[in-house]
């Protein structure tokens, strides 16, 4: 359970500085992954032949038209759905069902409405049998990190969408996951809140060091946040299984100007890829 101690993040960086031991727990390897549904009209492939490797600590965005299978891919990695072909490995181990090492942030938050913010954040820790006092401390700390200390005793229904999503992120990060799976996490938020949340996520991700897979509809969001953008294509409405059309490295550095020419060029290029496929 050392993974949940607040100090482990800094301890890991110090370790890395002393000896170059890379923490491999956040490495994602998808090889020839496919998902086939049996329907009354015969089998349907939601995704097929997906090969993707994500390095520990990398931030990868997945974009593509509706139905291209990007959420399916994320749900397979989360362990909610089983792939029907290929291999899915996180941290060198095959994925078999959901686990706290792979935290999921949903578009609709998925908070427990009958628990307070603090109780929501420590829920996972308690389920993993982290002692009560330690879980309490860790939850308070994470709630502070997302700036909601004043709201720790409120219920989710009393918070705005942006605040609820912060709680959901704090809840997942409290368990110190190696991999963070985010399924259009800011899709339900207004534009202003969305921008704030993107800044927040950049900061949190730098602190946590987790690998992030981020599904989004917004190409700007993808370019702003990620190291690489995976463009998916196909899907049931195209008569072809969802697949990876192209992987675009972003390479814009840490500070990104969403109005800068390089940013816009990249955005246009990815948009073209999404639309032509």
């Amino acid at each position, binding site marked *: 359970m050392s993974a949940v101690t607040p100090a482990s993040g800094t301890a890991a960086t110090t370790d890395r500085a002393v000896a170059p031991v890379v923490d491999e727990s956040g490495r994602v390897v998808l090889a020839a992954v496919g998902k086939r549904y049996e329907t009354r009209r015969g089998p349907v492939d939601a995704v097929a032949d997906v090969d993707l490797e994500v390095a520990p600590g990398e931030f990868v965005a997945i974009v593509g038209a509706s139905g291209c299978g990007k959420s399916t891919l994320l749900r397979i990695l989360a362990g*909610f759905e089983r792939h029907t072909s290929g291999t899915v490995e996180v941290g060198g181990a095959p994925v078999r069902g959901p686990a706290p090492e792979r*935290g999921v942030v949903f578009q*609709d938050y998925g908070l*427990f409405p009958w*628990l307070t913010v603090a109780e929501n954040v420590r829920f*996972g820790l308690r389920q993993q049998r982290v002692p009560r006092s330690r879980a309490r401390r860790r939850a308070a700390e994470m709630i502070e990190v997302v700036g909601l200390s004043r709201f720790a005793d409120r*219920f989710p229904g009393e918070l705005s969408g942006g605040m609820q999503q912060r709680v959901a992120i704090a809840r*997942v990060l409290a368990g110190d996951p190696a991999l963070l799976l985010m399924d259009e996490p800011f899709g339900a938020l207004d534009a202003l809140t969305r921008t704030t949340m993107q800044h927040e996520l950049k900061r949190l991700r730098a602190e946590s060091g987790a690998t992030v897979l981020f599904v989004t509809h917004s190409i700007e969001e993808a370019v702003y946040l990620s190291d690489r953008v995976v463009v998916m294509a196909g899907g049931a409405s195209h008569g072809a299984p969802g697949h990876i059309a192209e992987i675009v490295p972003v390479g814009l550095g840490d500070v990104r100007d969403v109005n800068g020419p390089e940013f816009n060029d990249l955005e246009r290029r990815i948009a073209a890829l999404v639309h032509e496929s």
Partner: protein
Amino acid sequence: MRAALWRRRVGHTALGLGFVALLLLMWDLGVRGEWVLVFDIKMAFLPPPDVVARLLWDFAFGGIFDDAYSGTLLEHLGASALRVLAGFGLAAALAVPIGVLMGRFPLVNAALDPAVNLFRPVPATAWVPLVLLIIGFGSQATIFLITLSAFFPILLNTIAATREVPPRLVEAARMLGTSPTGVLLKVVVPAATPGIVSGLRIGLGLGWVILVLGEANGIDTGLGSMIMLAREQVRTDRVVVGMIVIGLAGFLSDRLLVLGFKGLFGRRPLVRA
């Protein structure tokens, strides 16, 4: 703002009570004027409200008629409430866990659903002759009938509420490392609680409905038995007194149930407003 809300609430209460007053007035006028209503309801056969009020007072506090029922309200109400509570409690203790399991696990549902649907349409009235033969007169038969009647609405509401638990919450719990038992107890049950409470309220209400049926035979103390005896003696006034007390008891027990849950849950949104 708060004052405006308060004023509206007082206004609504006044409106509701005003309607009750209107009904009482119509009742009084109807009896005096010997109205005959639809269904051939002969108002002349009813006791007027003031007679019922006096008998109700005597039933509660005594000192007016000094008959066998004077000042015995609490005794009868207590005996009846105990039977309703026992029957309802037993029904809830069985129906809630079974309903959660049926709603959550298709195999349990497949095993129990046909039996449930075979027994459910049989009304409590149809059970009475059989119950009298296999259990016999008395309290036990009454409690059995109440249990039987309260069981199905609680069960069906629990099944529906369990099925309506958002799959997202189960996913969230599982990715946070919750065990299957934890998912059931910490997520499914609380998420289904508003629906379960609705079922419990319906079940408790039905308990009072079935009370009169259950107490009709071989019971001396209880509101139902009082009503049945009064019918044999053609004491319409006492029948009406019994009806009023049962109505109030049903209303109060529902309020108490809701308040109890609200007290238990505090600000947690687990009971429907």
